[in-house]
């Protein structure tokens, strides 16, 4: 298994390098002088800063040299400098990363648990009103744009009913510590995490339902009945276990969309994560920061894919730990 992990990590590194190279060419695709592009809207006015950039990235030199310098920089975790925010990009990202991990992690957990729950329920009661209701709701949430759900959630729970905070990570100026702090963050976490969670919940509900209905028709379920097993045991041990396999695969594929959802949600809820950072970079036309966040997002997705792949191979004995 270790060999497998090593091999996958190796592949991931190659993909990441390819993304970095892609970044390099993207900067040059933007209209205008690459140095000005990298300096961002704010930095472009500072002539000294621009000259420094030109020197550092060798922008007067042939492209291969530039590429080398850029990649070498990335490998030392130097993602550039944000003039507007007056901080190295890598530091900015590192500051904000934990908040995003908390948000996406929670959202993922909520969506998976409730998605499988509702999907199983719908499959058990297939054809009844419960099933129809769950399926229709899943369909609707699947079609709703994330940013709009976020806004509606704010409208409903914050403005209309004033139950939950709609802004930020914690109550500003309150300086809670310890358990009170956890509760405060938790209260702020509920709306954004549930917003993202709803969309993915819809996906997992539909997938689980379809998967369970399909597995129910398979021969080994008939064998289980022929043994005289109780229905609950059959559902749990035979149907559900097999039905969850494609859900795991799906979860892996959703990683990229999860990160994208984080960008929108953090923007609406002013959650201080890297998604919001990306939005700020957009507003400020700070391309260096933008691309730095992009690389980190890609790295997150790669790691997530590796984890889900490992889980899948552990759970399904038919697949070996091979290339």
């Amino acid at each position: 298994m270790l060999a497998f992990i090593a091999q996958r990590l190796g592949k991931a590194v190659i993909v990441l390098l390819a993304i970095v190279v892609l970044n390099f060419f993207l900067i040059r695709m933007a209209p205008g002088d690459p140095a000005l592009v990298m300096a961002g809207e704010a930095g472009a006015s500072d002539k000294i800063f621009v000259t420094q950039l030109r020197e550092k990235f060798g922008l007067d030199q042939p492209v291969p040299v530039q590429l080398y310098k850029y990649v070498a920089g990335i490998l030392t975790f130097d993602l550039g400098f944000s003039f507007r925010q007056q901080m190295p990009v890598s530091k900015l990202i590192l500051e904000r990363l934990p908040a995003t991990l908390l948000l996406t992690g929670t959202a993922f957990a909520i969506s998976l648990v409730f998605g499988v729950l509702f999907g199983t329920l719908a499959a058990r009661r297939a054809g009844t009103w419960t099933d129809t209701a769950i399926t229709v709701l899943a369909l609707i949430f699947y079609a709703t744009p994330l940013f709009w759900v976020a806004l509606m959630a704010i409208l409903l729970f914050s403005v209309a009913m004033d139950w939950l905070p709609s802004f930020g990570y914690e109550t500003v100026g309150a300086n809670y510590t310890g358990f009170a702090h956890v509760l405060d963050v938790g209260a702020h976490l509920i709306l954004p995490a549930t917003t993202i969670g709803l969309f993915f919940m819809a996906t997992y509900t539909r997938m689980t339902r379809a998967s369970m209905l399909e597995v129910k028709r398979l021969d080994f379920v008939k064998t289980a009945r022929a043994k005289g097993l109780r229905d609950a045991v059959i559902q749990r041990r035979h149907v559900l276990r097999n039905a969850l396999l494609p859900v795991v695969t799906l979860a892996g594929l959703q990683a990229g969309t999860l990160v994208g959802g984080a960008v929108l949600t953090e923007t609406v809820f002013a959650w201080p994560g890297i998604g919001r950072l990306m939005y700020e970079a957009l507003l400020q036309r700070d391309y260096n920061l933008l691309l730095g966040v992009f690389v980190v997002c890609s790295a997150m997705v790669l790691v997530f894919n590796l984890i889900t792949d490992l889980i899948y191979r552990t759970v399904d004995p038919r697949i070996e730990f091979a290339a």
Partner: protein
Amino acid sequence: MKRVSRMLSRNPGGLIGFVILLIAVAVAVFGPLLFPASPWRMVQRPFLPPFTLAGLPLGTDALGRDVLAGIVYGARVSLLVGLVSTLAALAVGIPVGALAGYFGGRIGDALMRFTEFFQTVPSFALAIVLVAVLQPSIVSIVIAIAIVSWPPVARLVRGEVLSLRSREYVQAAIVTGQTSTWIIWREILPNALSPVIVLASLMVATAILLESSLSFLGLGDPNLMSWGYMVGAGRTVIRQAWWITVFPGIAILVSVLALNLIGEGLNDALNPRLNKDGR
């Protein structure tokens, strides 16, 4: 075609979706006739609530613009972007997938590595970066959406072609002396296309979601009024004027839902019959 519409009608969800889509297309096509003035024009006082004035059923926004006119013109943008970007994605994805599936070997491997790369990168983030770098315009949005959308098409087509290549009637075509081109065109692609059609309708839905999300973040074409832009513009005044964000959002929801329903209806209609080969 007639068979498809007959099957669609047996599926109530698909029918509802189809009707809604027809309405949306009608609105997009005939809208400018009913609302000849530009949606950017100020027509009344700002923040007029909905259902208060006869000619402005959905009220006005922060700059006094007619919300209903905005939705009508937004329909044109969304549907256009959705359609064109999906067609572009198909134009790239289908050949890549077909070639990778039919010829396999090193060409197939190389093509699939290329496809996988684009699939690993988080698609929305890539779209943001592309539009930002190319400067927001309807062309750059279409290009960006097409670029993030084609990999699933290629994978699907490759999978279908791969399984069809070893199907016995394809082998029969080889054995009777047909050329590769003929086989791909006449034997494989027609049988591979039903899942692609289903995927295409779902892709238009995703494209609309992507376009509205991009516009929401401010990356929309600055000259075109789009639904995402309206929601984004109304965000800061949501407490005073909820209708500016709610109605365009509903428009997006309804269009995407309609397309998803159509996709599912098509899936039920097209796949069981033909995949089972009449069994």
